[in-house]
């Protein structure tokens, strides 16, 4: 960068094929980060879908239990009526919950089993076929049904008992499991009468926070969270479980990006090393030359980032269209994170070329190139 003349960009793109290949290489490495981030965000969205779409303003659970994922909650039978007695409460929906397996003669799948009262809150958010369950019936997710090879009217085993499939829901299968809905009564018959969670709706004019505080005062030996707090906790459990893997994969991808950027900058620098000597001879300072390399690095990263975002969006669209249990969500925060990471990588990749240029002797311009 020397004022108006875009020396850095001209040098970087003087050999277009090399620049294009390197930018593509960096873009693929960044794409890997985007896809990992996207799968992660998609998984969180899937795992929290049931709570997010529950319409509950607050959720009551056993003391110190703050999630459904990897948790077990049991409330006292009297808690439901204590909650209902709180003046700020508009509606109450107790649910029973356990981790289990849904089994067909052909296949089996890990499932969260929810026992709810049909016609009230706590059931499937979206029924795409059939109807809510009656006793002896279950609603399973459409994607899980396809995988298990079962249709409406088919038979499945849930919690060791046979159920007839009465309906198909959507949006309740994730990369790891699915949700099966049975009646509150059936669940109680199989696993006992304990209530796992109580979904609570606020009266008009009552904020979720106010409802939470009122419930916490009325049922002090339990944990009360607003829906968004509950979702955040669920997300953090998924995040904590996957964080190490994600960090390692992201690190590997960024190291690949670093290697490609460093190689591009170094080969570009070597290809123009005499030019740098000439610029030094006619008055270019070491800091100006260093800026030139950094500008090249930023150009490479900016182009690679743009390409990676386009590829990631395209790939996410394809995967979301053709895969029902894997969701890729490219979030703006992910783009910002990758951009910052890639910029750091670019700066590191520029170190060696900058060091090399600092050693260029301006007197080299007076030596014959032949």
């Amino acid at each position: 960068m020397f004022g108006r003349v875009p020396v850095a960009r001209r040098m970087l793109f003087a050999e277009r094929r090399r620049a294009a290949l390197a930018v593509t290489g960096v873009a693929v490495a960044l794409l890997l980060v985007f896809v990992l981030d996207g799968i992660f965000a998609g998984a969180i969205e899937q795992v929290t879908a049931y709570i997010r779409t529950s319409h509950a303003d607050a959720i009551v659970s056993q003391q110190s239990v703050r999630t459904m994922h990897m948790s077990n909650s049991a409330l006292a039978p009297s808690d439901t009526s204590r909650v209902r007695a709180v003046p700020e409460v508009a509606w109450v929906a107790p649910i029973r919950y356990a981790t289990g397996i849904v089994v067909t003669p052909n296949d089996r799948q890990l499932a969260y089993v929810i026992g709810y009262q049909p016609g009230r809150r706590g059931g499937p958010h979206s029924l795409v076929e059939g109807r809510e369950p009656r006793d002896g019936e279950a609603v399973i997710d459409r994607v899980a049904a396809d995988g298990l090879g079962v249709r409406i009217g088919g038979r499945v085993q849930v919690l060791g008992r046979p159920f007839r499939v009465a309906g198909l829901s959507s949006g309740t299968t994730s990369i790891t499991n699915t949700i099966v809905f049975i009646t509150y009564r059936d669940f109680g018959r199989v696993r006992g009468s304990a209530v796992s969670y109580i979904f609570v709706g606020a009266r008009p004019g009552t904020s979720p926070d106010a409802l939470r505080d009122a419930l916490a005062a009325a049922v002090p030996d339990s944990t009360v969270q607003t829906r968004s707090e509950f979702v955040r906790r669920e997300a953090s459990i998924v995040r904590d479980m996957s964080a190490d893997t994600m960090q390692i994969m992201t690190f590997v991808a960024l190291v690949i990006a670093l290697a490609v950027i460093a190689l591009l900058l170094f080969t570009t620098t070597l290809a123009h090393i005499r030019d740098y000597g000439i610029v030094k001879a006619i008055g270019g300072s070491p800091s100006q030359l260093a800026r030139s390399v950094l500008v090249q690095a930023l150009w490479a990263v900016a182009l690679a980032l743009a390409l990676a975002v386009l590829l990631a969006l395209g790939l996410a669209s394809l995967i979301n269209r053709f895969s029902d249990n894997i969701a890729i969500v490219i979030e703006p925060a992910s783009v910002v994170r990758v951009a910052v990471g890639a910029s750091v990588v670019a700066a590191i990749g520029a170190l060696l070329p900058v060091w090399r240029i600092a050693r260029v002797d301006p007197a080299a311009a007076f030596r014959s190139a032949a």
Partner: protein
Amino acid sequence: MNTVSALAVSQLTKTFGTGDLEVAAVRSVDLDVTPGEVVLIMGPSGSGKTTLLLMLGGMLRPTSGSITVAGTDLAATPERRLPKLRAQHFGFVFQDFNLLSALDALENVELAANLAGVHGAPAHRRGTELLERMGLAHRLHHRPDQLSGGEKQRVAIARALANDPPVILADEPTANLDSGMGREVARVLRSLADDDRRAVVIVSHDTRLRDIADRVLWLEDGTFRELDAMAHDPICGMAVETSLDHPHLDRDGTIWYFCSTGCRDEYAARTAEEAAPPGT
């Protein structure tokens, strides 16, 4: 120091190595170049010409002595300030043209203006004017590989003028040009002194440049010698010292001096052939 000097050099010395390995490339050289003057420095290979030029351009630290341009002694200037001094006070013309291959002609010239602190439209205007002056108005956006040797050197001269320097340092500016292009470049260099009152220092082997020089200095073994007191090798034309320590030959009472024993032997063979009676 002459008060009107554009470039004043005093007792300039450069030695490489130490102890028994110490070699003096330039020894106690004095030189004043006034505005509007063209000084041609000639000399055999290894005589210290390039070392001297590098020191004059602030690219090589002298061992001792001073180089004063625009009131600043380059020899005493901290290393970090030298790039700015080069960008503001010197124009460089190189043997290999040394244009940046990734930039077009105009950008090459604008870049030098940018380095001197002129940016944007003024730099663009300056670049365009200089290239037009060099007769290259139709080549502004051509890259170096699309230009002839003469055009490249004229772009390089335009670049050397982009910062409006008081001193032009040219290293073998005609070496890679045919005779026609060489004459044209020589004429342009002369005009820089005559029209712009710039001091032009040329280092070259090209004897044709003597025609445009106000002074010709002969550098040999790191010191300037009086060119008038020198002879010319009759084989290669190089100026050589009239010393019996150099290869020489006595022909009919005339002593001929040579740059090397090779030239002397060739001359001896040639004159012996001419002197031999026909048929022998």
